[in-house]
């Protein structure tokens, strides 16, 4: 007789029930098609492929700006918080100067306070030495060296970025077509870099990748390569730029500008502005106090004095004033007794020069000739004549340059004295060093020409800016007079040189530092040639005393340096 089956205990029933539940759930999950999960389709990611930014080269093909891969330093917030000694160790390994160390400390502080525990970039573009030191001296978990960024390098430590502009790594901007931020991208900030950005930047590529939910790339579905940026050839000459910098360094010029234009092609050869702020500092960033110090610096390092700082040209404008008045307003002789009366007002001249012809008055720096010509021609005619030489209009060399001022007053506000002020290069006219250099280069060519920075292959080497309907005889007379000015006579006799110097006073800055009110600045404007090479050099000295003579001396030193090493490569130069 069979015994009846024993009733299962509650625990056994629980075990069976749980097993059945798990088996059923397993079957449900396993037999569901994977494609039924909607989120699987979201695991494709479109990534932008940043192109390599094209280099900028000088007229000889030497690199002025180029892109290089760089390595950044990143540290997790939790690591910074947990290990207070880490900052000191990183600082020692990076070997930063005081300003950089302050910036680094500020970034560490911000990263340590961040709520998200992710790698924070503390320093960019590590040098090989820094990387080795980090690997040797600091190697805790959570400290990363991130490759994959791009840095922009400039020749000669970025001293020439006044003409080139600069581009910095793009860490917070978006790529093309709204793509995700890409640290490999470079963002053009100023100058040629921003003006020719479309050419230099190239075109972005794209790839579609399959990623895991954690973001790891599992595979690549499609790829369109990025097209690298083109090479931009400029009229600049690295050797000339270096020699100009050497000359200014030797003269300890701290505030001023210098511009060199090639008389053969009328291309811009070199531009220097002092003081200057390295674009590498923009790439690194500033602390709040550092940025405030830059803004409050009385020498105004943010001001590009060659392109953006337009000031009264003084007597450097004289040849163009005389050309603007026309031969009919220039009598054969003008008598100078030290003053020129216009109605009730008296306009002074430095000396009583006596009766002088045009060439003598220009050579001796007589203001009376300029007063007389301006009084005859009037302000409107003077302004129209100056505009033909490019005054009051940007040269087009840089997108951020100042156009200077040339604003004849309206008929209701016009007074005869305004024209006399204008004739002396004051009043309603201001010009940048680049504008004056372009005008003087045209003077050497006996017609207004257009100076360029990027050669246009379809144009002539020396493009005209205006039709040459000038009084050739008058022009020749003026140029020959410029070759006999005291400034020109200070140049080497073997050079074929014309020169002039002018003085102005800085505008009134009521909110700037008081000690800089109404300080003097001097111009040294000239062109000279020797042995088939010719340059127009404009120097402006913005500091100290006797600025005009110092500017002329600097121009002479620049010519001497350039002529002495003509045809010598930069590497072989003494």
């Amino acid at each position, binding site marked *: 007789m069979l015994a009846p089956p024993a009733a299962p205990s509650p625990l*056994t029933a629980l*075990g069976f029930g749980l097993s059945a539940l798990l088996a059923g*759930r*397993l*079957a449900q*999950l*396993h037999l569901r098609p994977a494609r039924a*999960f909607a*989120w699987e389709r979201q695991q494709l990611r479109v990534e932008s492929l940043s192109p390599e930014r094209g280099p900028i080269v000088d007229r000889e093909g030497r690199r002025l700006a180029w892109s290089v891969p760089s390595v950044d330093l990143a540290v997790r917030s939790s690591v910074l918080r947990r290990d207070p000694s880490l900052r000191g160790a990183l600082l020692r390994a990076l070997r930063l100067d005081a300003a950089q160390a302050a910036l680094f400390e500020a970034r560490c502080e911000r990263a340590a306070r961040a709520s998200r525990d992710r790698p924070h970039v503390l320093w960019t573009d590590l040098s090989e030495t820094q990387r080795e030191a980090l690997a040797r001296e600091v190697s805790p978990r959570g400290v990363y060296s991130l490759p994959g960024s791009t840095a922009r390098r400039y020749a000669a430590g970025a001293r020439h970025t006044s003409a080139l502009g600069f581009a910095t790594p793009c860490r917070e901007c978006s790529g093309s077509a709204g793509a995700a931020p890409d640290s490999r991208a470079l963002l053009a900030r100023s100058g040629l870099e921003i003006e020719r950005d479309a050419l230099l930047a190239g075109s972005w590529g794209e790839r579609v990748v399959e990623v*895991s939910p954690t973001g790891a790339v599992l595979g690549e579905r499609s790829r369109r390569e990025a097209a690298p940026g083109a090479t931009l050839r400029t009229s600049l000459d690295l050797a000339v730029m270096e020699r100009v910098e050497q000359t200014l360094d030797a003269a300890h010029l701290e505030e001023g500008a210098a511009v060199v234009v090639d008389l053969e092609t009328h291309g811009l050869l070199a531009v220097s502005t002092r003081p200057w702020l390295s674009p590498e500092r923009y790439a690194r960033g500033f602390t709040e106090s550092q940025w405030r110090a830059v803004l409050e610096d009385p020498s105004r390092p943010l001001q590009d004095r060659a392109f953006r700082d337009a000031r009264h040209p003084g007597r450097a404008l004289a040849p163009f004033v005389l050309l603007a008045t026309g031969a009919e307003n220039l009598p054969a002789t003008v008598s100078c007794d030290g003053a020129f009366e216009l109605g009730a007002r008296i306009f002074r001249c430095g000396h009583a020069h006596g009766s002088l012809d045009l060439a003598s008055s220009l050579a001796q720096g007589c203001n009376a000739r300029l007063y007389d010509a301006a009084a005859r021609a009037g302000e409107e005619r003077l302004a129209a004549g100056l505009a033909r030489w490019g005054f009051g209009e940007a040269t087009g060399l840089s997108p951020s340059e100042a156009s200077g001022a040339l604003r004849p007053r309206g008929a209701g506000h016009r007074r005869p004295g305004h024209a006399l002020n204008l004739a002396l290069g004051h009043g309603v006219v201001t010009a940048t060093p680049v504008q004056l250099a372009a005008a003087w280069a045209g003077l050497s060519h006996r017609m207004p020409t257009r100076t360029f920075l990027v050669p246009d292959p379809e144009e002539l080497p020396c493009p005209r800016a205006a039709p040459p309907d000038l009084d050739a005889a008058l022009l020749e007379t003026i140029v020959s007079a410029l070759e006999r000015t005291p400034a020109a006579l200070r140049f080497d006799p073997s050079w074929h040189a014309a020169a002039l110097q002018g003085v102005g006073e800085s505008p009134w800055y009521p909110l700037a530092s008081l000690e800089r009110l109404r300080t003097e600045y001097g111009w040294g404007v000239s062109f000279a040639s020797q042995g088939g090479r010719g340059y127009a050099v404009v120097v402006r000295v913005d500091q100290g005393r006797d600025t005009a003579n110092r500017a002329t001396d600097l121009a002479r030193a620049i010519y001497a340096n350039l002529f002495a090493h003509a045809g010598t490569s930069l590497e072989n130069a003494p």
Partner: protein
Amino acid sequence: MKQLAPRLLAAPGGRLFALAAALACVGLRTHYAGPGAPLQVGSYFARHVGWLLLGGALAVGLSRVRLAALLRAAPALFVASLAALGLALAQRPVGAVHRWLHLAWLHAQPLELARLALVLLLGACVTHRRRAAALGLAVSATALLCALALAQPHLGGALLLVSCAVAALLASPSPGWLRATLSGGVALLGTLAATFSLHGYQRARLARFLDGADWQARQVALAFAAGGLGGRGGAAWSSRGAAWVPEHRTDYALAAWGFQAGLLGTLAWLALWALLAREAGTIVRRASTPEARVVAAGALALVLVPAALNACMVLGLVPAVGVPMPLLSFGGTQTVVCLGALGILAGVQRESAALEAARARAS
């Protein structure tokens, strides 16, 4: 040689060890297929093999030790566990939790050891002359351990402690009403403590589970679905699958096995656990002494409750609680403690069989 396998299986604890070995092989296969070189020194696979060997040796050793000796050592083991837990709380947290004890080369989770110590302490309390005081002490010890677990914080660990205590108390020879009251009280206190000590992230996790918006659960479901009926093998897991599943070496190792072996593999794995549970249940039922029954019940809960909880968590039936799957998930302490508990079960079976044989001879 042909006789050896049946003899080993017929020996006390033989079937238990065989089932545990089969489950351990599943774990080894899962980790062997993971990303990285498995045979490299220091790899997850190599370390898992080491822990299994260590745990196996401990299991065999504990199966040979008399239960009375273990019960005598229980108080010392419990105090040592408390000290380790306190030390872990005093140490620097890892990921904002104090679960790990770092002593030179040793990195262990003391709560796992505390569960084993609690089971043995409960067994020792049952045999004490002053049973009421001893039971009160057992409940207090459980509450103390739970408080330390929640201070880590480790909600899953606290729940496992409570489950071990309830299982042991239910198996004790006390009157039915007392057992029910004590076990119910412990369960209620544990649940209340766990509920009121929930942290913000745990509440958020619970809310996501109730809303069906748990990202981890969705990824795991996708891995199971990708496994299908027959699985996609270790190569596919290594190259593609592992990147999809979070914590695939520890808490969600079952999803890794499901991706590799499919429905057939996971059902086979489930069947192994069912057989092991049946074998362990038989050992508990046939335990010859009250203390042996209590210890065996506690050891059974120590092994089976985390397995059931982890399976339910991976399959999306309960919220994530951070409990690994015994013998499948990577982890040193829990593997060793789990195998140690199986060794204690085997020892109980051996002693019960010996006692039964002695009784048979006497009759």
